[in-house]
């Protein structure tokens, strides 16, 4: 008797011999055969006939197997992978497993997204710095003329140029298309009731052709007109509000006696945020003849603030450089040999912002500090990303114990190692994509606004930037691969038999997990140390003495000596004013540079020309000798020096030492304590005081009775308005001169505190995840311990033992590294900073220990309050 089912089973078995057919394919063929037989039976064939006919028509199996096998072989191409539903399936599985372990998923996604958010912020910062000045169409052709000269034994670059050079260059070189000079002057600008001190740029009409500053209103060519003035948008709003001011009059007062009315001929569009050169007011260079009749356009001994040239082709610069030799000769013939220059040089506008930090007297803002910050930030971000990836790796490895069965079953039903790897990588890409999305949000809505708020500027970050998307994809790929590949390879290597027999105990004691956690702790230690050091440093610098008494000291600028006398006469009657002093320079505001000569050597020093009262008024303490006497004639050839002067010249007995400045000989009569003229980021230079000629007084400084600063300040302002209704008051508290410096260093501290907080957060998340998984895997063990009477101490030790060893090791390694790095960073960033000692490390380690204990104690508590009966019931 024919047994259909048996025959079918036998027939199907012959398919199973071939690897090419999977379960689904064999089932499909079985159904085919049954369908066919149904038809044949309906045609009246017997069951056996129908089976034999259907099998015969179905054909030989081995060529089918060959065909099918060639399909499988081609399975591994990437395109075929994408085309299959596999990824869809895996994504679904990963989202489900994410939902199943919310804690792990949170640690992974949140950690990664914070790091990615930071990466996006750094990207925004980098693109901002690199965008600086790139909006100038002629940025490669426009070059700043500079010169090199030896000062104090080193060659230095200066941004100013001899006055006649610009015109000569234009006439002598055919490949120079345009030239423009820039001279900056402080003037008083008046329009109706608006009167302010402003900086005005005297420049050649080519300025607006060489630099790309499109106008909102008016015409650029109007700069050729002697009576035209061009305003920045900011100034237009300041003086005229939102209306179009073209055609309106504005008065410039150059000094007490000279002034000139200008017609507004143009208003520039708002300047791009990232720029080094801009202007408030532009007027024709020739106006210098009116504002300063003594200005000699042809004197090689005098300098103009800046000269820019525009070449026909950027490459022309080589021929130009060779041709500069003759100007050097002219220049050196004209000037004193102390000021001889060694060569002329050029700086392209495109890269000026990067270089101008090293150029003295430059008119361009520089981004050298920003470039330095980029390196710092990039390091920080790279470390943060690595920290977050390590969390991912750790958690993936440890939690793989929970998924051993899944992997075992998958492998048993035929998943190859490759398939498991792909599954885990897909899961990882899903996680990373979530993190990327969240990270973009965190970066865009948290980090970038925070940083812009700190410094008060906009980085002009936008999502339309194509490189941003390349960068984001790179981050996605980087984090996905770094964090995903090790777990994927590791987990897929498990042997099925081991898993299913339960003899495998992977994960909890994996040495790599320990190593990664240890590394995280070391990094956290470094970041905390940085935050602590920067915070301490801010505190330290805010307490650091300026070297003189800037409290109760006020200052103001006066138009001239007559003005000084007028103010002094009125203020002298105020009983709360203790002393009044006049000077040509002022601490924190201005100084001159002099060259002191001995027969064998010479030095560059900072020079302040002051009156005899200045030391008392500004609270500068004398350490040796005496200060000036009131009598100008008797002390006009005497100088008072600072301690740095004495120490850097190695003087044993400075008093009575003689030096030549220009041709006159000066004698040291006193030594004062060192003081900071400018911010703490600038080193104290050798400095001298000279008696100022009364006619040069432009500063009036005063010392008041403690507590009366505010009233006196108001009184001075009131006096000023009475005496000079036309000239705006320009002065302030001496304490406020470098007030924004404190803000800056406070920002440094805040930035590092945020970084440290993120690093601690990441390390804690990782630690928390690991401890949680560890405890979860040892529920039975702890339950038994508790049943047998283990107390708090015993449990605590058991939970934390392995971590304490690791933690101690991390600190032993991390502390010296942190110390070394801090020394390096601080010596690079600050001239004067808090001494970096082991105490800082102690504070940092204490913070780390505290956070560490908090993290672990949550888990110890969980074990303590758990019911051992429940714990023992598990599985």
């Amino acid at each position, binding site marked *: 008797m024919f047994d259909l089912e048996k025959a079918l089973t036998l027939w199907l078995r012959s398919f199973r011999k071939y690897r090419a057919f999977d379960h689904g394919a064999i089932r499909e063929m079985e*159904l*085919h055969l049954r369908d*066919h037989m149904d*038809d044949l039976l309906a045609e009246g064939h017997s069951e056996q006939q129908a089976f034999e006919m259907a099998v015969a028509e179905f054909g030989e199996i081995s060529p*089918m197997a060959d065909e*099918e096998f060639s*399909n499988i072989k081609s*399975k591994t191409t990437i395109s075929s992978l994408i085309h299959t*539903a596999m990824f869809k399936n895996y994504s679904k599985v990963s989202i489900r497993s994410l939902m199943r372990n919310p804690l792990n998923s949170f640690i992974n996604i949140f950690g990664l997204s914070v790091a990615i958010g930071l990466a996006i912020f750094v990207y925004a910062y980098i693109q901002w710095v690199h965008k600086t000045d790139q909006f100038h169409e002629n940025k490669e052709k426009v070059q700043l003329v500079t010169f090199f000269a030896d000062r104090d034994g080193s060659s230095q670059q200066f941004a100013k140029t001899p006055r006649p050079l610009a015109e000569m260059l234009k006439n002598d070189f055919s490949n120079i298309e345009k030239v423009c000079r820039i001279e900056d002057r402080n003037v008083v600008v008046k329009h109706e009731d608006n009167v302010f001190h402003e900086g005005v740029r005297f420049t050649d009409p080519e300025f607006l052709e060489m630099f790309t500053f499109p106008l909102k209103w008016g015409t650029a060519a109007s700069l050729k007109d002697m009576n035209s003035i061009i305003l920045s948008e900011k100034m237009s709003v300041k003086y005229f509000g939102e209306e179009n001011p073209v055609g309106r009059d504005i008065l410039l007062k150059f000094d007490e006696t000279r002034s000139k009315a200008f017609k507004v001929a143009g208003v520039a569009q708002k300047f791009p945020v990232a720029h080094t050169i801009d202007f408030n007011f532009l007027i024709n260079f020739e106006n210098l003849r009116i504002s300063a009749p003594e200005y000699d356009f042809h004197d090689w001994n005098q300098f103009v603030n800046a000269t820019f040239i525009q070449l026909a082709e950027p490459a022309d610069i080589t021929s130009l450089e060779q041709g500069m030799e003759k100007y050097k000769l002219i220049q050196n013939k004209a000037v004193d040999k102390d000021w001889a220059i060694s060569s002329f040089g050029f700086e392209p506008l495109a890269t000026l912002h990067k270089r101008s930090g090293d150029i003295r007297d430059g008119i361009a803002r520089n981004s050298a500090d920003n470039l330095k910050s980029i390196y710092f930030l990039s390091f920080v971000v790279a470390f943060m990303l690595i920290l977050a990836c390590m969390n991912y790796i750790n958690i993936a490895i440890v939690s793989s114990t929970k998924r051993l069965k899944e992997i075992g079953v998958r492998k048993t039903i035929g998943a190859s190692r490759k398939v498991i790897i792909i599954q885990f990588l897909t899961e990882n890409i899903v996680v990373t994509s979530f993190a990327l999305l969240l990270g973009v949000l965190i970066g865009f809505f948290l980090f970038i606004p925070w940083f812009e708020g700190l410094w008060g500027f906009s980085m002009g970050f936008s999502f339309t930037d194509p490189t941003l998307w390349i960068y984001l994809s790179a981050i996605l790929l980087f984090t996905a691969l770094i964090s995903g590949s090790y777990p994927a390879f590791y987990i897929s290597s498990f042997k099925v038999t081991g898993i299913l027999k339960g003899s495998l105990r992977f994960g909890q004691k994996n040495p790599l997990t320990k190593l990664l956690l240890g590394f995280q702790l070391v990094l956290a230690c470094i970041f905390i140390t940085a935050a602590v050091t920067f915070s301490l440093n801010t505190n330290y610098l805010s307490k650091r003495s300026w070297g003189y008494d800037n409290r109760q000291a006020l200052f103001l600028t006066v138009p001239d000596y007559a003005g000084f006398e007028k103010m002094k006469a009125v203020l002298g009657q105020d009983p709360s004013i203790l002393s009044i002093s006049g000077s040509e320079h002022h601490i924190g505001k201005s100084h001159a540079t002099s060259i002191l000569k001995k027969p064998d050597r010479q030095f560059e020093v900072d020079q302040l020309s002051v009156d005899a009262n200045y030391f008392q008024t500004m609270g500068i303490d004398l350490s040796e000798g005496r200060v000036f006497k009131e009598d100008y004639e008797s002390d006009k050839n005497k100088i008072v020096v600072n301690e740095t002067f004495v120490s850097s010249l190695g003087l044993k007995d400075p008093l009575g030492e003689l030096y030549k400045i220009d041709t006159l000989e000066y004698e040291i009569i006193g030594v004062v304590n060192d003081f900071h003229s400018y911010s703490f980021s600038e080193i104290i230079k050798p400095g001298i005081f000279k008696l100022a000629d009364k006619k040069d007084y432009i500063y009036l400084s005063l010392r008041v009775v403690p507590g009366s600063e505010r009233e006196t300040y108001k009184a001075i302002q009131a006096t000023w308005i009475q005496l000079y209704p036309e000239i705006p008051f320009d002065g302030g508290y001496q304490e406020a001169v470098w007030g924004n410096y404190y803000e800056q260093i406070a920002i440094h501290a805040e930035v590092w505190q945020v970084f440290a907080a993120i690093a601690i957060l990441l390390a804690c998340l990782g630690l928390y995840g690991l401890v949680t998984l560890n405890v979860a895997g040892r529920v039975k063990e702890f339950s038994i311990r508790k049943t047998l009477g283990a107390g708090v101490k015993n449990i605590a030790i058991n939970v934390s033992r392995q971590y304490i060893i690791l933690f101690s090791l991390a600190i032993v390694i991390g502390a010296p590294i942190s110390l070394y790095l801090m020394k390096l960073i601080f010596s690079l960033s600050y001239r004067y900073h808090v001494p970096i000692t082991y105490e800082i490390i102690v504070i940092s380690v204490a913070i780390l220990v505290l956070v560490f204990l908090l993290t672990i104690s949550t888990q110890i508590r969980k074990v303590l309050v758990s019911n051992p009966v429940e714990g023992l019931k598990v599985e």
Partner: protein
Amino acid sequence: MISKNLTAASTKAIILGILKQGNSYGYLIIKKIKKMSGGKMEYSDGMLYPVLHRLEKDGLIQSNWTMSEDTRPRKYYEITEAGKQALLEEKEQWLQVNTVLEKLWNLKPDTNY
């Protein structure tokens, strides 16, 4: 009877063509081909399946197991957008072959020969 090679070469176009008219499963596809060719195309039924699987892998068709109470489970195949595109290309190619052949058959013997 159509030769094996030619049958094999045309399978892709034929399967895609059939699926273009509506979703179908293996046995039904074979039945249709046989019916349409009037039995002129010789097939071993089993060889259809590797072809179907390959087309699926290439993303030209996709499959779906359909379970129902009253019939056997069936693995239905459905043509994808990529598949429709591929079918157009196939059609183009077969038409070109056809054109060449037609021109050849209609050519009069060369008199200069």
